Structure formats: structure tokens, C-alpha cells
């Protein structure tokens, strides 16, 4: 790890971006083009990770890690897999109404674990599909990519996902119908509404976005003005594809901010929280922060230093309202790079120097908890998660070249969706 920390900022980013991308190539099925959710044995595919992977291939071409032809071939294989998969209301299909199940078998492409037909994960998949359609603008394979990308997007019945309500449901299962976990307040779903509103076939009504934003909460928290959402990833996912600098919807016009600025303020909030460290967790500081959704040590309670500490398993951690059990997401600080390189790089360097075990093969693990002493030297998440790696590739690229943002600015569904959601100004 000394080797990494000794690198210049630019060389460090090179290494970490390439390392993250190598996850995609290492854990993609050669036949289906599907990408594993994690590096663990028998991991199924996560459709969201496929969305990130599809977005990574053009970046790989740009950085000379892949030939354009190979990237096109890989992309085409993946798109074929989805286009030719089974769409029905049967419990072992790949998708339904143009949406896809969250987790699929890497080989058969069928649903696993009785998981849900996931709206937000389908959205992340489609973001990658649309990006591929924008990037590959030549003939041959590339023309077919454009046709398939358009067809996959057109097949999605966003209106069905309203379930006759005012806002979209979060998911659906053949066993019980729509899932009602309630989406209250701001979260990562902005891009879902944008793509839904931009659909040429089954567009969401503009009122659905307005009805969702009714639950927004503009808050002054720990001295920061934020549109609040606890977990850090919620401030990053939509931004991996869409450049929100200077474009504003009605809510942001009223608060004189924009979603980019909001992510920046939320990052400042995370840093301030870590500096205050109200629960006295090991390691937290203004240079070690980043609390997000992910794995944790497990649902355990430990008694130490005359007090009980409660730990959690997989959950959406957030600040300042919690839950927080001292688990940080080691990839998160670096993923905030486009919003401010100083804190992102300083934090990442501090993390690599203090807890080098969080990074192996130039890839960050999903979670680390130095407070959890139940297993010796803190708890470390096993292997790597595809979402973390994909997000890092995109965010590092956006910081360095704005490549993904520039591509997606030209993507008609994004432009139409943003306009229908009431966004104005800036590059729009």
C-alpha cells in the first residue's frame, strides 16, 4: 500500500480507476455479458452493476484500456442478453414490462432469490444502455447497439410502475404485486424520474416528479444547507450520469441551489459529522468519512468501555440521523471527487495510510468498521462490490474529463426528461 500512497494524485487516480474497472472485466460472464454483484463465489448478476459496466466500456476505450471494437462487441453481447431475455409475469423470468429483476443468474439470466423487479436498478441499467447508445455512433455493431438501446428503453412501461398512484412504486414481485416501502424525501431516484419522464412510449406524467418532490426537505443541518438524504450514495448515483451543475428544477430555484451544489453541501455535512463524531467511533475525522448503504459487521451488540455498542448488517447507513455503527464505505470519499477534489483525495490518502487493508488489487472493499473489535482488528467486508467499482470508474472520469456528463448531455431521453421535470438553465 506504501506504493499507492507514494504516488502523485494523478497516478493514484489512474491506478484506482483502472483497478476499479478491472473488476468489470474480471467478473463479467463471457457468454451473457452479465456482471457479478460481488466478487464472492456464486454471486448473481446485479442489473445495476451491468448499467455501470456498460458506462465503463466507453471510458475504457477513451483511456486506452480496451479497443473500440472490443467495447462495442462486449456492449452488444450484453444488450442482446437483455433484449432476448424472457419478459413475463412468471417468477423465473428476467424481467417484466421492460423492467428487470434486481438479481439475475449469471448464465441463465433468470431471476434469483425471489428478488424484486427493481425500478431503480433497472434505471441504472438503462442509464448504461442509453450511454452506450450515445457513444457508439458508427456503423456495423455500433448501429445495432443504438437500435437495441432504443428498443430496450422503449420497452419499459413506466406508467405501469405508477400502479395507478401519483408516484412510482419501488418494485414489484410476481408473488405479491407492487412493493410499498414508501419513498419519502430526496434520494437516488432523481435519474429514475428523469428517464421515466423522457420515455417516448410510456412516459411518466410530470406531476409524478412534482408529487415526489413534495416530500423533499430543505434543511440546515450541522451548519450546512442541504436537501437532506442520509446515505452518501444517494447524493452520487444520479450524478454519475447527469451533470446537474447550473440546471435547476422548481425546488432548487426556490432554494437558490442545484443538485450538484447540494451533493457538495451533503459531503461537507458528512465531514462535519465525522469531525464531531457523536458516537465516538474509531477513526472518524474530517479526513475519514463517508457513510453509505452497504454491509456491516452484522446484527451484534458488544459491551466495551462501559457501554453497549450496536452493530448492523446490510443497511442504508446515513448521517446525522443514522443509523451509524462506525462502518465507513472506503470507496465513498473517492467517489465524491467531482464535487471537490481536495477532501476526496486527502480523505482517500488518509484512509490508505491508516487502514491499508481496505484496498486490495487497487480496489476498495465495500465496508470497514474499525470500531468493531469482535473480530480483532476491525471488521472488513469480504471481496469487492460491483456497484462501488463502477461508480468509482465513472466519478473519477467525470472529475478528470467530464466525459460521461458530456455524453449524456446529448442523450435525448435525459434532455427531454429533465425538461419535463421542470429543469431549466445552464447547459439545458
Amino acid at each position, binding site marked *: 500500500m506504501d506504493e499507492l500512497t507514494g504516488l502523485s494524485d494523478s497516478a493514484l487516480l489512474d491506478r484506482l480507476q483502472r483497478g476499479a474497472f478491472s473488476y468489470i472485466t474480471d467478473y463479467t460472464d463471457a457468454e451473457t455479458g452479465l456482471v457479478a454483484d460481488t466478487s464472492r463465489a456464486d454471486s448473481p448478476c446485479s442489473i445495476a452493476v451491468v448499467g455501470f459496466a456498460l458506462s465503463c466500456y466507453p471510458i475504457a476505450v477513451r483511456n486506452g484500456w480496451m479497443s473500440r471494437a472490443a467495447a462495442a462487441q462486449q456492449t452488444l453481447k450484453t444488450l442482446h442478453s437483455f433484449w432476448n431475455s424472457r419478459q413475463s409475469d412468471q417468477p423465473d423470468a428476467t424481467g417484466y414490462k421492460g423492467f428487470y429483476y434486481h438479481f439475475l443468474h449469471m448464465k441463465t439470466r433468470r431471476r434469483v432469490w425471489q428478488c424484486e423487479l427493481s425500478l431503480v436498478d433497472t434505471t441504472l441499467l438503462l442509464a448504461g444502455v442509453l450511454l452506450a447508445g450515445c457513444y457508439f455512433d458508427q456503423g456495423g455493431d455500433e448501429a445495432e447497439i443504438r437500435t437495441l438501446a432504443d428498443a430496450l428503453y422503449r420497452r419499459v412501461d413506466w406508467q405501469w410502475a405508477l400502479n395507478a398512484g401519483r408516484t412510482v412504486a419501488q418494485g414489484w414481485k410476481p408473488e405479491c404485486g407492487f412493493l410499498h416501502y414508501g419513498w419519502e424525501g430526496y434520494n437516488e431516484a432523481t435519474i429514475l424520474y428523469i428517464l421515466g419522464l423522457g420515455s417516448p412510449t410510456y412516459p411518466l406524467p410530470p406531476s409524478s416528479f412534482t408529487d415526489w418532490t*413534495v416530500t*423533499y426537505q430543505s*434543511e*440546515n443541518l450541522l451548519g450546512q444547507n442541504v436537501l437532506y438524504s442520509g446515505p452518501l450514495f444517494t447524493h452520487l448515483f444520479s450524478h454519475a450520469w447527469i451533470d446537474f451543475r447550473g440546471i435547476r428544477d422548481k425546488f432548487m430555484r426556490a432554494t437558490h441551489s442545484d443538485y450538484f451544489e447540494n451533493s457538495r453541501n451533503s459531503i461537507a455535512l458528512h465531514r462535519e459529522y465525522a469531525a464531531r463524531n457523536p458516537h465516538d467511533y474509531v477513526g472518524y475525522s474530517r479526513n475519514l468519512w463517508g457513510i453509505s448503504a452497504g454491509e456491516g459487521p452484522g446484527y451484534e451488540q458488544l459491551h466495551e468501555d462501559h457501554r453497549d455498542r450496536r452493530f448492523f448488517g446490510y443497511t442504508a447507513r446515513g448521517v446525522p440521523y443514522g443509523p451509524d455503527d462506525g462502518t465507513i464505505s472506503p470507496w465513498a470519499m473517492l467517489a465524491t471527487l467531482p464535487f471537490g477534489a481536495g477532501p476526496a483525495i486527502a480523505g482517500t490518502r488518509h484512509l490508505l495510510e491508516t487502514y491499508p487493508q481496505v484496498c486490495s488489487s487497487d480496489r476498495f472493499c465495500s465496508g470497514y468498521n474499525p470500531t468493531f473489535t469482535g473480530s480483532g482488528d476491525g471488521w472488513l467486508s469480504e471481496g469487492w462490490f460491483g456497484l462501488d467499482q463502477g461508480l468509482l470508474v465513472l466519478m473519477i472520469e467525470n472529475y478528470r474529463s467530464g466525459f460521461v456528463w458530456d455524453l449524456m448531455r446529448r442523450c435525448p431521453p435525459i434532455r427531454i426528461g429533465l425538461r419535463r421535470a421542470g429543469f431549466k438553465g445552464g447547459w439545458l
Partner: protein
Amino acid sequence: MVVMAPRSTKSTDLHERDLLRRVRPDDWTNPVARPLYELVVVGGGPAGLAAAEWAIRLGLRVALVERRRLGGDSLNTGTVPSKAIIRTAGIHAIMPRAEELGAPAAHELPVDFQTVMARMRRIRSRIAEYHSADRLRAQGVDVYFGGAHFAASDALMVGDTRLRFKKALVATGSQPQRSTIPGLEEAGYLTSETVFELASLPKRLAIIGGGPLGCEAAQTFSRLGAHVTLVQDEPKFLPHEERDASQLLSFSLARDGVDTRLNTVILGVRVENDVKILETANDAARYRIDADEILLSIGRTPNVADLGLAAAGIAFDPVAGIAVDDFLRTTNPRVYAAGDVCMPLKFTNAAEATARMAVQNAFAAKRRRLSLMTIPWCTYCDPEIAHVGMHVWDASERSVSIKSFTVMMQDVARAITDGQDDGFVKIHVKLGTDRILGATIVASRASEMINEISVAMSTGIGMRKLARVLHTYPAQSDAIRLAALAYTLDQPVSWLQRTYARWFA
């Protein structure tokens, strides 16, 4: 948790006798009716009692009719008993964690359920004195016990006695809502009306409904040693509170050992070998919950039956209750309503306030509007969850832009020293102004702290002025000043202010 063997119920009987002597005396004789009352109040709960007291103060001839016990559910089965037991449960929660506060922990503190309940009865009986029949009679109120129904637009019957009135107030309250869950009636269940009559602590308690009562009961009974499963069919507990408050409550319920089941519906209930079995579904998954007792707490319905409301031309709905205008007047101009029977917010404080407002509107020149009333409320879990005024979604639906100023209790010195740093103070302010539109407070004593916001809202004190009000230090309520201070710090400093500052530097 060790549960002790039952003790004698002698003291319990004494407290029960004392209570009845006050709120439903055995030897009570209804008065001889006057030819005409200026006000007849139907219902002797918090609303009815407040109305009678207010009307007597105005020098009116007042009759009050109560079907069961004075004090209503608030005194007899709801607010008062639950708070008494919550206090004891709090002791049992703190003792095992005493080490965190620097004192020795007591992990196996025995629970004497009979003593817990006896304390509750003693307290209930003591508070009942303030609502007693004797006290009302001494004040000049004609108190009738018995069922009342309207015989005409200006007359009520209590048994064979006809009470003619110039004005009447219906304040009959509400009762626990029933359920259509298959098998529940046959299996038997407790409600807020019967749960405090329990003679022993159920080993396994299943609670249906994650509203205020369900959550309070879940935490309380869990702290006393029952294995509690709390089943809620929505994505969060306290669906009418904001997400962050509900989330904190979920954490604290889990910390106290409550088995929480959100997004879960009950498919049916059956009994096998004296065990009540609840079949539940969470999306596609099916679960079974075994319980010794079931507490149903899915809301309250207004008491509108058997009152002859139609005979008096009083419009009502079985779910929404009696229809009233903004002055609490029913569709019969002589008749007003107050409290749970007509209010969506079914709280004791709202019942009393609307009752006084109704009397004022019926007999005074200056009328007051219900829509202008500021009603704070609280769910008495640990931490407590209190709210007043608008929620964010209320403001958004009215196209009012707001900004919330939040202070976490974990940043408040006194909350840290007290080891009570869970929660927050969140004050909603109209954007571009310092006007407070509402607030949510989650804190150990949120029920006390919210009153400061109520005072500010009722008297028009804005964030600027609130920031300048000195609070004791350290105090948990200082969180309110800190939120107001955050507002002040968030305001831009004008060019003129900067120039002056430099000038005087």
C-alpha cells in the same frame, strides 16, 4: 427479565374504589332537571369537563351527562394510565444500562407487574379527584349519569328525564377502532380500554398497529419483560410523523428488544393450545407470530352511535364523526361538538381546547376559529416524539416553501451530560421569513420542549427573536435556541452591516 409472583390485590381494590367514588359514585342520584338549561354537555371526558367548567365560569346553567365514568378514556384507560406505566418501564430500561451513566448496572431487575399496575391505579385515582362528580356538583353543574340521546333539536333524554337546552355540546369522544382481521374476534384481543386491566404480564404480546398507542405499548411492555412483536402494515411507524422521527423510533424500539415488523399485514388469527397465532405477510414472505395476548391499536372511531343525532338534525359520518364548521357548530345551529367526536386529531389537549372554544363561540360575541388553533402533540416513547404546526408535506401541498433548521440532540451539551442525546429539534420556517410554521422534536422530554415552540407560534415570535431569548445553560431546551441561532447565522450579512462593523473596528 425476572417476573415476580402476584401479590395481594387489596390495595388495588382500594384504589379502584377511590376512583369510582370520584368518577362514577355508586350512590349517585341524578338531579331533578331544571326546566331549561343554557348548556347541556353530552360526555364527561376531557372535552365535556372543560366545557362545563368554562360555562359555569360564564355564569350559565349547565348540565353534564356521562354514560360511564367521568374523565373519559384519557383518565380511565388511556393517557394517564399509560404514562404511569411508561415511567416504571423507563426505570427498567435504565437500570441495565446504568453503567453508561457511571453507576452499577442491574441486569436482572425483577418486574413486579402487580406493583406496576397498583401504582398506575393509585395515580389514576389521585388525578381523578380533579374530575370528580362531587367537584362538578360543588361548582354548580347538574351531573347526570346515564345514556343520552337527542329527542328533538332542543332536547335530550337521559333515561326518562328530558333535558331542554338553549345550546348543547356533544363531546362523546371516541373508542378503539375494530378490525375485520379473520379470526381476531374469536381469538380475543385487548384494546387501549382493556390493556390496563391485565392482571399479569403476558409472556408474548403481539401488537397490531404502529401508531402512537401501539408504539408506546410495545416499548413499555418490552421494557417490562414481555416479548413484544409490533406489526405495522405501513413502511414506517407513526405514519403521520416525519421520516427521520419514525426512523429514530424504529432504532429505539429495536434497542429495547421489540420485534418490529413493518410492511406487514395480518392475514388471519387462530388459537392452538391456548396460543394465539397470527399469520402475517410481508410482500411475498409469510411469517407466523405466536402470542399469549394481542393488543389491537389501529386507531379510534368517534362515538356517534345511539345519540339520536339524526333526530336533532346533526350531520355525522361514522368514520369522520360529527360534521362541524370552523366554529365547531354542527348542522343544528343550537348544537356544537368538541373533542374526539369531531376532530381528526384525537388528543386530550385538543379536546379541552376545542370544548372551551365551542362554549366561547356559543355564548360570546367574539368567536374563535378552529383552523387557527395550534395543537401540539406527543408520542410518549423514549425518546418522545412531539410535533406542532405544519409538516413539510403540508407546506408543500399548500405551495408554501419552507426550510427546516435542525439541531441534533447529540450536539446539545445537556443532552450529552444526561446521556439522553438521541433525537433532534427541527423547526420549519417559511422561506424568506423567520416565521415558524411548525416543528418536530424528538428528545427525552420532547413533550415539554415542544411547548416553547407552541408559545412562539401562538404569539408570533419568529426565529430572530427566539435566538435572542436567553435559555438556561445547560438545558435540553437550549436545542431550540441553537436552532434559532442557526437560522440567524444562515442569514446574509448586509453590505451596510459589514461597513459599520469595519467602521467601529
